[in-house]
């Protein structure tokens, strides 16, 4: 793809050049101008070295959680369902060609099809040219017994069409869950039940010895006691974590705890890992796009600082700057995302101390908007009653950002804002999937890595919609 573009540019330059009076000089000059922002050197990707295995990993990692989908109405593929395998292949090819060599998937991603799609795309390249990360997503208590979790791991190998995993993670330790007796467990107890008490972690390290896993680590969301426990086991020498996956971005650096009292600021999480020399894999550097979709005022501040840099590039530069970061995962749905992020990290321009302070000031403003911290990860989905939870939150956040959440019917802009909110709501979310249909069963809430009290927020939005409708 990139080759096509550069060829087109080349031809354009050539045409411009031959038209000029002094062909040689003009050709060179116009080529310079013709270089686009995203055209990158294929060898310029910033690489980081894993101190445990010596793996040289690209700073940009490909998150396979937000795979591109076929256009609506297209027939689904019997193998890969609604996902656009052809596009996935193209994007994976582009990524590999531009130095991206870390691919992060999980058994539950993309309706359970992510591993398969990833496997199909990667199988077309030599196995030693990339690293595969996948997870033990044993959220359902039926998978808690050791044999069931083992089956899940074996199935991952099968779907990914490989006989070893480079990076295997205990998936979302710290998340609460419900055991088979229907009892709700907190994040700490759930972590014990899923990974420790059933002997699963011991078994994984055995697999590592056997060469079927090259690095064992964990990803963490939620209950900080689970994070502490796992690091304590590391300190005691019982388990040696080869890496750890945490959420890190310029908003969560200082504000994760302020946004939600149960979360921990990224600065603390990263500090704990750095202290122990555990490489950090970064997730949600962009908060599911929320840090790319900022309001006009914030966008203007970022653009004033650097007119050429995209809004998203600030977030990626921030996440990639700490030296202990092994790779920054981005769920790049579109080729344009991929191109832009490759450009941002080819090579990385680390965030300077002044820029760091500037981003902290931006974070303060974003925090002040009181958006719902949803990253559209889809863990809460599918809602058994048909709601489209991430789309409802996305619409609400969009209206917050655009100033379309009027509070008083007396305001002169009330009618316009009300219309934008309500008409936009029907456009973004079909009526039958809107918040009014939330029955409050609470099945979604434990799945949320951001610890959002989903039913409460949905009802808050529904009450607001009701108020807007009645004040019509």
């Amino acid at each position, binding site marked *: 793809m990139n080759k096509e573009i550069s060829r087109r540019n080349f031809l354009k330059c050539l045409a411009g050049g031959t038209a000029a009076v002094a062909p040689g000089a003009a050709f060179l000059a116009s080529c310079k101008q013709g270089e686009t922002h995203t055209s990158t050197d294929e060898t310029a990707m910033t690489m980081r070295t894993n101190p445990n295995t010596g793996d040289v990993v690209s700073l940009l990692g490909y998150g396979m959680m937000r795979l591109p989908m076929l256009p609506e109405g297209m027939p689904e593929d019997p193998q890969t369902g609604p996902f656009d395998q052809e596009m996935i292949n193209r994007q994976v090819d582009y990524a590999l060609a531009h130095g991206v060599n870390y691919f992060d998937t999980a*058994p539950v991603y993309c309706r359970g099809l992510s591993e398969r799609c990833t496997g199909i795309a990667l199988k077309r390249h030599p196995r030693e040219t990339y690293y595969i990360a996948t997870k033990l997503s044993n*959220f359902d208590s039926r*998978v808690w017994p050791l044999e069931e979790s083992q089956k899940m791991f074996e199935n991952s190998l099968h779907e990914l069409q490989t006989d070893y995993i480079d990076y295997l993670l205990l998936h979302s330790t710290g998340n609460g869950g419900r055991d088979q007796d229907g009892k709700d467990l907190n994040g700490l107890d759930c972590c014990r039940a899923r990974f420790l008490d059933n002997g699963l972690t011991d078994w994984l390290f055995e697999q590592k010895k056997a060469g079927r896993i090259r690095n064992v680590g964990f990803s963490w969301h939620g209950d900080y006691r689970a994070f502490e426990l796992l690091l304590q086991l590391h300190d005691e020498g019982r388990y040696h974590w080869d890496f750890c996956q945490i959420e890190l971005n310029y908003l969560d650096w200082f504000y994760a705890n302020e946004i939600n009292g149960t979360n921990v600021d990224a600065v603390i999480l990263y500090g704990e890992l750095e202290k122990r020399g555990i490489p950090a894999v970064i997730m949600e550097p962009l908060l599911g796009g929320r840090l790319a979709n900022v309001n006009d005022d914030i966008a203007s501040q970022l653009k004033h600082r650097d007119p050429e840099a995209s809004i998203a590039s600030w977030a990626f530069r921030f996440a990639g700057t700490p030296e202990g970061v092994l790779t920054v995962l981005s769920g790049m749905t579109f080729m344009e995302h991929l191109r832009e992020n490759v450009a941002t990290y080819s090579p990385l321009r680390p965030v300077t101390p002044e820029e760091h302070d500037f981003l902290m000031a931006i974070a303060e403003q974003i925090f002040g908007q009181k958006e719902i911290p949803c990253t559209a990860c*889809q863990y809460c*989905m*599918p*809602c*058994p*009653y048909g709601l489209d939870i991430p789309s409802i939150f996305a619409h609400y956040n969009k209206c917050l950002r655009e100033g379309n959440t009027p509070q008083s019917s007396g305001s002169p802009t009330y009618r316009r804002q009300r219309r934008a909110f309500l008409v936009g709501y029907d456009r973004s979310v079909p009526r039958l999937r809107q918040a009014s249909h939330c029955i409050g*069963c609470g099945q979604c809430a434990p799945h949320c890595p951001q610890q959002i009290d989903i039913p409460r927020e949905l009802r808050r939005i529904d009450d607001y919609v009701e108020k807007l409708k009645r004040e019509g």
Partner: protein
Amino acid sequence: MLRRIRICLAIVVVLLLTWLFIDFSGIAAQYAGWLAKLQLLPALLALNFVVVAVLLLLTLVCGRIYCSVICPLGILQDLLSRLRPRKNKKVGRYTYSPEVRWLRYPVLLLFIVAMVAGVGSFVALLAPYSSFGRIAANLLKPVYVGINNIFAGVAEHYGSYAFYSVDNVIPSWPTFVVAVLSLIVLAVLAWIGGRTYCNTLCPVGTFLGLFSRFSLFRVRFDEQKCRSCSRCSKACKASCIDFKRHTVDASRCVVCGNCIEACEFGALSYGRTVTASPASSAHDGSGAGAEATVPSLVRPDETLDSSKTGKARAESSSATESSSVAEPSRRSFLLSSLSVLATAALAQETKIKMDGGLADIENKVAPERATPLTPPGSLSARHLASHCTGCQLCVAQCPNHVLRPSSGLLTLMQPVMSFERGYCRPECNRCSEVCPTGAIRPIGLDEKSSTQVGHAVWLKKNCVAVTDGVACDNCSRHCPVGAIEMVPLDPADEHGTRVPAVNESKCIGCGACENLCPARPFSAIYVEGHEVHRTN
């Protein structure tokens, strides 16, 4: 001149009325709603004596101008007959035909009897304004909404909120079929003979003809100037000009002015009657006119009286019907819900949860209600049945798709409520504002939210709190009057499963609970109608 004024007025009226029937935003109701209230039969039913008196006076003075300019169906007939291609544009294609009295008056009589007896379906079939409404709401509105939705798609693409998308639904197929048939019959009649329907079948036309027969101003012949060229007869879409005898049947003439314009010799003019008509017929006329006006003034009261007795009969019969119908309907409801449960249980045999995707949502199916639900403002099923002419205006205007035409034999095309697509929202009283016949009386929002059109009934077998063991209080949470309380299923277990309990004395029957109930396709809470609305 007369013809030009007539055409201009007619076009404005028919456009405004069409807009009223196809509009979904509620704006048309503000600007064109008065035109619906100007219609004779609706005004008569609404006991709007001012409008009725003005229209009758207008007819007595000027003839049946109403049929040319105010009645949308009359204008529609003109439009349809114009569609027929003509070889010679100057010369018309109609011919004189004598009045078909044996059909005209029996139809009018039958119509009055049906109105008195409360056979709303027959009334709705013949009433001209209702036929127009039916055709516009069923055949034009889907096209209009479709075009709007295309614009909405474009607007969405450009991030504009100027247009918004609306569900495009045919509210009831039987009514749709009736609308298509009405249009076909009308089009065929108009194609062949211009205003045949208007002249011979339309009860309102016949009724007005009783008055226009004696109108002060009318089209008259100047026999001196007439050369018997027949152009006037050929131009007359009402087929009421006999050029040989130099007569114009004023009971059928709709004062369109076509004949005046067609006559090259100035033999026809519109003016006072006295000079032209023979003395004997003028004398006859005034006498019959006096006779005709007296009963017509009495008629509204008569209608009321007899409708009362008629309705009492209807009420008693429907009461017995409802008690006998309630059992089987509930049984079938439970049976179907059981089968639904079985399929749901099968679907439960799933693998572990994966992330993403959307659960399928089954469409709601209307429960069989022992008593149909009638909209707030309609006072009672009887009041609605005896006043509604089935014009579909309320159905077309209902923004929440709650109202739809009834398929009942006696109430065919009259509105009933159901909540599969939405519920009767507390901020809306549009149907009561637009209803021209007073079948749905104007009702304020406060009054509406204290009018009990029905009451909710909980069906344990369908409730997800019982069947799926999940916590759910969606009906209770959305009840606008707080009539639903969540109570323990087992009174002894205060902390166990909670289920909704309806306080019937507070419930207004708005259907929020039924519409938002997660149980599908049959809701676990549904609304039973009240034959007579109550206020609390």
